[in-house]
């Protein structure tokens, strides 16, 4: 829509006013850590907002698809839904995480619309922040570049002396009332564009090939069992790669009771396709069937999902290059650039 400018000295007051008006979730440093790490959390004061973060431990999808979410509560045989979406501002999200949110939006929307996710998503205002610092595992400049960030309401970029806020929706425009914004000048708009463009050159890791060529070679490598066995040989099946992934959305559903043994809830929890029993089912009389019994099969399934299976639905790979899986992996074997670059080109 329009670009606006706010001076550095007025920025804190803007954030403070926003925090006073509604819940603001932003990147903040995790306390008592030797190496500084960041998380998305509700801010209580503007000083806690750390737009100079590199990457957060968990992606912001947790605001709409939390690690644990009640789908319904029951009392005896009666049940009611648990949807109580809260209007909130997700402030300072990097563009790659917005791309991932746009993908989870599409996946929860398709075929059977899942209000448990979408209602929270629709109640949120999302503000992108330019990447001020690049994480050592990032490769977002070389994956799915044809997929542009969508679904955000405004895009904030740090420039000399202040910030440029480019609004994209009426929800984004509504933010202007909380701060001393002026129309951005042509040179400020130009500077914001250059700042965002130059960030791309700072990614330490890179994936080779286009989305289409990567999808083709990864899919073609399905039957290359020695390759997947080798790639997955140190896998602990711990699921850390799934847990930190901004596009993973698999879940398990479990019921639990309150102490009255009558009322309780049906709750979904993040689940991981790398864990051993993900595709296992019981056949009775002690027999079971596990449709992805081997570590290599599960490891391969994840890479197929990220690089090939969902491309037609999403317009590109279901990976945005945040590098979180690569950093979280217990055995350090999950880096998608390392894995995919090792896969030979399709014939």
């Amino acid at each position, binding site marked *: 829509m329009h670009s606006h400018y706010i001076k550095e000295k007025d920025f804190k007051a803007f954030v403070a006013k926003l925090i006073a008006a509604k819940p603001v979730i932003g990147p903040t440093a995790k306390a008592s850590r030797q190496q500084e790490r960041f998380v998305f959390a509700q801010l209580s004061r503007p000083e806690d907002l750390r737009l100079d973060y590199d990457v957060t431990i968990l992606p912001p999808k947790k605001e709409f698809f939390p690690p644990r979410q009640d*789908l*319904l509560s*029951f009392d*005896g*045989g009666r*049940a009611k*839904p648990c*949807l*109580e*979406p*809260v*209007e909130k501002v997700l402030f300072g999200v990097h563009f790659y995480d917005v791309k991932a949110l746009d993908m989870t939006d599409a*996946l*929860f929307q*398709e*075929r*059977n*619309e*899942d*209000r*448990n996710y*979408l*209602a*929270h*998503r*629709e*109640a949120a205002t999302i503000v992108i922040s330019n990447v001020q610092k690049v994480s050592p595992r990032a490769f977002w400049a070389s994956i799915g570049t044809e997929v542009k960030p969508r679904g955000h309401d405004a895009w904030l970029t740090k420039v000399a002396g202040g910030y440029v806020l480019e609004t994209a929706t009426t929800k984004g425009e509504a933010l202007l009332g909380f701060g001393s914004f002026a129309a951005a000048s042509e040179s400020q708009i130009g500077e914001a564009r250059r700042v965002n463009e130059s960030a791309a050159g700072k990614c330490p890791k890179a994936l080779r090939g286009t989305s289409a060529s990567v999808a083709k070679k990864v899919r073609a490598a*399905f*039957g290359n069992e020695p390759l997947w066995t080798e790639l997955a040989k140190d896998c602990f099946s711990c699921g850390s790669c799934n847990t930190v992934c901004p596009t993973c*959305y*698999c*879940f*398990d*559903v*479990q*019921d*639990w*009771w309150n102490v009255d*043994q009558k009322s*309780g809830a*049906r709750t*979904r929890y993040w*689940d991981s*396709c790398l864990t051993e029993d*993900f*595709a*296992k*089912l*019981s*056949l*009775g*009389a002690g027999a079971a*069937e596990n*449709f992805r019994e081997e570590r290599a*099969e599960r490891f391969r*399934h994840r890479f*197929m999902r990220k690089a*090939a*299976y*969902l491309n037609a639905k999403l317009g590109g790979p279901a990976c945005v290059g945040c590098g979180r899986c690569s950093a979280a992996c217990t055995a350090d074997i999950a880096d998608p650039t390392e894995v995919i670059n090792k896969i030979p080109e399709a014939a």
Partner: protein
Amino acid sequence: MPATPRVCACGKKAADVKPNIFLPREAEIVRVEKTTELERVFTLRLADGGRMEFAPGQIVEAGLFGYGEIPLGLASSPTRKNTFDLVVRSVGRVSSALNRLEAGQSLQLRGPLGRGFPLEELRGHDLLVVAGGIGLCPTRSLIQYVLDRRQEFKRFTLFYGARDPKQQLFTSELADWRKSKDVEYHETVDKGAAGWTGNVGVITALFSKTRIDPGAKIVICGPPIMFKFVVRELDKLGVPHRNVYLDLERRMKCGVGKCGHCQINDKYVCVDGPVFALSEIEHLEEAL
């Protein structure tokens, strides 16, 4: 004062908001039959008095609050009365809890879900149903349908294999099928028992008992290991793979194509299936 329309915090009017896809409806148990040591046949009706509209081969998520849900194939034909059947085998927490229920009590279910048998494709053709073990339950929805609309189908053949005579399901119906002129019924058990005079051996041996036209439509449901061997027999007969339909079992946890547990490569069995044409999935490495 006019009532204010309820507005969700997401900004949508309550009327525009789709219902929670995880909210089940209640079904009353009309009858429970203990059919084997492990299995119970539940005859159910919807508690709200509505009719359960479904196609043969579709599934439901059946459950109990506090225990959870399990996927089950609808085990009776929609052509039958205002009730419907589900068969539960006690294999875990939810199924064992369901199998403790008695007539008059209720359970919850979501559905029908997924894609059933392609009736339009099957009508007007010879039909062979190959059911192994508990695979007879979802195929029973089709078997009953064909028997109820017999004139819409040509020659109808049914193969049923069970582990041993005691594991046979729906024994009174099996007795009817043995005598029926509407279906050519062949059965076998992996392991015989005292008093059993029928066939003993794997289900594929039944192909030698009759002649299947290569133009027939084939429906297969059974343990994962069975599919490959049956398809091998069909290949010998020259049945095209587009005429072969498989009713697959996977861990269909959510039933609505989200949770990920039932995936075969890029397919979600709960919404893309559970019934697939062989030609549609044979290129998928994880299918068979």
